[in-house]
């Protein structure tokens, strides 16, 4: 079983590396946001710079999971190869696991430019254990976005997946406080914020990297989102089986 997960992960990783456009776009966006939003405004204060760097890591992770997964799953479903894979003696688990592990690898790579920019151009500081903890929090907080990516990918055509995932990405990222600090946001945004999954996820990252206490309501809401998106992804996968005409 685990050797099949390995085979699927290897296969997915090879595809990512050979056609690295997904990798490059995942790495480019958070690095560009880092230069545009963090370096000019939050570079001088160590706490603010560290927090903002955590936010940009989350931006990269969200884009790799939500946009990356939904688009690649939807595209794969349109290929005849997908039908062939389903005739092989394996259930859905190795393919799900392979995709999620590959997405995690892409996320960790996409974080590198953000960390380099933070180290070179800001006063952000961190210890090695806190960095590792922060990366673990990043992966954990991304789970509902990966599941949402799978859900959209199994539900939509690839063109629709591109549009819908982008449409979701920006409002959810902004409401979660990833682009601008929440204290400069209007009151209604601050009221809604704890209930969007990006807020809970970034709270985990902030808490892991700076030691600040995480907002409990946001973290509980993140747990709720994880459960809901898991049910949704499993439902969409089952619904997808047998839907294509041929």
């Amino acid at each position, binding site marked *: 079983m685990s050797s099949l997960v390995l085979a699927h992960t290897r296969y997915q990783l090879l595809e990512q590396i050979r056609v690295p456009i997904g990798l490059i776009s995942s790495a480019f966006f958070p690095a560009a946001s880092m230069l545009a939003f963090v370096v000019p405004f939050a570079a001088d204060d160590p706490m603010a710079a560290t927090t903002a760097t955590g936010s940009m890591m989350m931006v990269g992770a969200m884009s790799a999971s939500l946009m990356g997964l939904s688009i690649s799953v939807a595209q794969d479903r349109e290929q005849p190869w997908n039908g062939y894979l389903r*005739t092989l003696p394996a259930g859905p688990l190795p393919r799900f696991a392979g995709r999620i592990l590959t997405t995690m690898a892409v996320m960790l790579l996409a974080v590198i430019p953000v960390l380099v920019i933070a180290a070179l151009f800001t006063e952000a500081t961190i210890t090695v254990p806190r960095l590792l903890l922060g990366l673990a929090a990043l992966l954990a907080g991304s789970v509902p976005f990966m599941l949402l990516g799978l859900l959209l990918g199994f539900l939509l055509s690839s063109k629709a997946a591109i549009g819908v995932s982008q449409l979701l990405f920006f409002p959810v990222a902004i409401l979660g406080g990833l682009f601008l600090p929440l204290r400069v946001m209007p009151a209604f945004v601050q009221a809604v914020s704890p209930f969007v999954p990006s807020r809970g996820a970034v709270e985990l990252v902030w808490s892991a990297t700076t030691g600040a206490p995480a907002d409990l309501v946001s973290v509980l809401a993140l747990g709720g989102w994880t459960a809901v998106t898991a049910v949704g992804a499993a439902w969409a996968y089952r619904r997808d089986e047998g839907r294509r*005409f041929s």
Partner: protein
Amino acid sequence: MTVLARATEVTRRYGDVLALDRVSLDIRAGELVGLLGPNGAGKSTLINLFTGLRRPTSGTVELLGGSPRDPAVRRDIGVTPQETGLPEALRVGEVVDFVSAHFPRRTGRDELLDRFGLRDLVRRQIGGLSGGQKRRLAVALAFAGEPELVFLDEPTTGLDVEGRRALWDGIRAFHDGGGTILLTSHYLEEIEALAQRVVVVGHGRVLADDTVPAIRDMVGVRRVTLSADALPDLPGVLGSEREGDRVHLLTADPDRLVVELVRSGTPFSGLEIRPTTLEEAFLTITAKESTLV
């Protein structure tokens, strides 16, 4: 003989479209069965049911004593992907390793590639292969897990004559070693060359299921070919076609036709009487069916 795959009273609908209509079919161990039918006849749907991709709307499908939906049951079958869908970024050796990883028994990578003349291409990216090479790789993948039963959907489409012959040899070798094959093809010549049993499907139903000669005989039509300038009206001619100075006549009673021809005193030469090809038989069977519908 053991039945490896069995469809019993299987119906499959896609919305309003009836793709299969109460089809029953047994594939027995050691058989090489040709599945024949026009596009949209239900061939692919039948294969999709046997390989676990689809569920029947009603009826049952059994594979190797279990359900084709059960991944463990599918360890002993092999399926060809469409060559257009092969992952372009991967190398030939990598995709073989990936597919092989799913099977407990594996044909060695080099041996498998050797068998289909792909050994030299092991390091090549699939995107850089020719159409024929992709086709051969797609067929090779069906044999990666040392299967008992192989489903080959259009295995030689797009191959040149030489490539087709080479692939036929590979299919025959598997069959001679005791393997069972269900084959679909647009090339009737291919079914005629390989299959012992032919199943003709049309409009979602099995129209005929018999040996190649029996299917030909079932139609009972012979082709009479001769050279003549002009022919009188002859009895029992079902169809005629002129090709240069050769005239082809299709008839159910060639003896009477020749007698009448001689009686008419028309000069002719080069008389030949041949059984119809599978293609003619197939067209007749499916045409009969559509006049009934």
